[in-house]
């Protein structure tokens, strides 16, 4: 058991940091103010990610065949930590890197691989994820968007909601129903400029232009847009989630923002109070607890251990870490949450408040921990 980074890992982290120092513009904090899903940040990713790709830092963990370098799992994760802590300059392209690309490698046709993977590896592809619906959030399998066969095509009708990146996405990774139950779900890779797709931004507390409604009205796509087989959708989603496992390494940004908050207080001579010092450490404890649980998941993956429940525990801890840090800031630096002088705290807050809701509610994670990890019985 060794909790220290190897020299190689440290060197890789420094490479990423140097790249970020060199490539992020002076007004980056303004661009990143409204989160990875904002219009500004999504557009920025289209100039940033090709540079990242050129430096070999966009898909280092992908196989060489698809533009990667077969680098270890931990490097991919270090990359994720550094990118998220910097405000995620990859925008929504982190999804391509983490799971959409690997899913297409596993389930895609040769044509789909050739069409989508090179674009992703070059940092030129914006995707959105068409999962949640007005009636299907935590209970994703109850989705109602339908894809009905019509000759060699499918005709899709339905509505998606909370869709990040939809405003600028070229392609949607869409879940739609071709039959009943979990076995009646299929995945479609749908060009967003297809006739019948309408995108509406939803004003929200988590950044301008971050989430959308997407309406599908008689959207006709060829059969070649289907990923895998009909009825294979749930298997594909499960594989995608197992690739993602712990999601965004949010605790890394929280830990750094906490340091920045402490520095701000120290600059004002306001970090001498024992209550404030203790509360800062309490928030740090939540960040490090989350880090440890996430590292356990990454370590399992690096050793080829099949996914278990460790990721569900980690996701619960990540929520607490994000909230404790933003609560610390609001309690002791309330003035920093107005105006533009401390935009990074505002930006962190907007990312933090969504943590227990996006990509699987914290309560769903607790359900899974209770049932599968603690072996507690199912209710009547």
């Amino acid at each position, binding site marked *: 058991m060794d909790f220290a980074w190897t020299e190689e890992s440290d060197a890789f982290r420094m490479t990423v940091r140097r790249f970020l120092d060199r490539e992020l513009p002076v007004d980056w904090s303004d661009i990143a103010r409204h989160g990875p899903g904002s219009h500004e940040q999504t557009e920025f990713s289209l100039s940033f990610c090709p540079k990242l790709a050129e430096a070999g830092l966009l898909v280092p963990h992908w196989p060489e065949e698809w533009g990667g370098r077969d680098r270890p799992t931990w490097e991919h994760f270090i990359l994720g930590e550094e990118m998220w802590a910097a405000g995620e300059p990859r925008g929504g392209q982190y999804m391509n890197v983490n799971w959409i690309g690997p899913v297409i490698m596993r389930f895609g046709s040769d044509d789909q691989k050739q069409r989508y993977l090179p674009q992703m590896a070059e940092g030129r592809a914006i995707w959105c994820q068409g999962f949640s619906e007005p009636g299907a959030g935590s209970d994703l399998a109850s989705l109602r968007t339908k894809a009905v066969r019509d000759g060699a095509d499918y005709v899709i009708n339905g509505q998606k909601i909370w869709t990040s990146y939809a405003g600028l996405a070229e392609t949607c990774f869409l879940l739609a129903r071709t039959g009943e139950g979990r076995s009646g779900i299929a995945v479609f890779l749908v060009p967003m400029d297809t006739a019948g797709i309408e995108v509406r931004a939803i004003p929200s507390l988590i950044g301008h232009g971050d989430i959308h409604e997407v309406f599908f009205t008689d959207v006709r796509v060829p059969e070649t847009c289907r990923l895998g087989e009909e009825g294979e959708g749930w298997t594909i989603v499960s594989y995608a989630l197992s690739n993602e496992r712990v999601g965004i390494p949010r605790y890394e940004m929280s830990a750094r923002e906490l340091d920045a908050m402490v520095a701000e207080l120290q600059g004002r001579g306001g970090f001498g109070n024992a209550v404030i010092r203790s509360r800062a450490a309490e928030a740090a404890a939540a960040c490090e607890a989350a880090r440890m649980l996430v590292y356990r998941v990454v370590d399992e993956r690096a050793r080829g251990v099949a996914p278990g429940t460790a990721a569900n525990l980690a996701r619960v801890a990540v929520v607490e870490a994000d909230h404790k840090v933003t609560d610390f800031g609001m309690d002791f630096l309330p003035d920093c949450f107005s105006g533009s002088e401390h935009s990074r705290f505002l930006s962190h807050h907007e990312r933090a408040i969504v943590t227990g809701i996006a990509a699987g509610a914290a309560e769903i994670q607790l359900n899974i921990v209770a049932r599968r990890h*603690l072996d*507690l019985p199912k*209710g009547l």
Partner: protein
Amino acid sequence: MRLAPNQDQTIFAGVLARLLEDDGIAGFHTVANWSRYEYGEALDDRLGEAGFFEAAREADLGPVAAAMMVHEIAKAPVVIECAASALVRPFLGVEVPRPLAVVVDDAPGAIRFLPQAKTLLSISDQGLRVAPVEGQCRAVESLFAYPMGCLDVSPDWTALDTDPVEVRTLWQIALASELAGVLSGGLAAVLAYVRDREQFGQALGSFQGVQHRLAQDAVWIESAQLLALRAASSRDPADAALALGAVQERATRIGYDLHQFTGAMGLTLEHPLHRWTYRARSLRSEMGGASQAFLDYADAKWGGR
């Protein structure tokens, strides 16, 4: 970064697990006069004979294996003096007989394990001191599920040259490991109870109100163990303070849940829950409790005002 035990640590943990599976030496038995604790003499002897308390000094086992051992032993219903012997004694720079009792910053009152202790270790800013105490103390009754005692005479102290900061750090790691283990043992007992106990026609553990709280407790306990192991690996003062503060801060809420979900049964001395919860109540206030540990972390991490 590798969070799985190495081969030697795996073998070590496996042998320890087999010892702890022996209900005769590590299981729950009620004791005469309904004492809140049972000192595991047989377990202590077996571990001592097999050299378990020396593991921290072995290159391929180290403090990480010792912290794992403290955690696992704390999960047992019987109690033995393990934390100081496994994680502190090997680094004192002198050979002193065990069991050890530890007093920090001359804290007043009864001391854990003093009735069994052969050596008392004092950790303070002035330095480290040890004293032989066998036969010099008086056992006192206590709410806590540990043997507690007071000294009748002034101890015959010998000062040590070892760095007190290093030993204080090791003691924080030891306490963090023990408290995480104690809470883990208590959680396992409560999980067994709520899986079986039925009310309103279904198992208590099937109610979401119960499930969510126990699941959250599990998240806190498992992260606490990892933080303690990381601190054992680094022996860094900030890591140690954070590990201790994190688990002490959660111990009150977790202890409440554990008692709440076993109801009146958990308040009896026929049920083992008190063996863990009344150890946790003692450990959560060691070295000044979570607030002091967090202040120690703030000092180490961020410095002054």
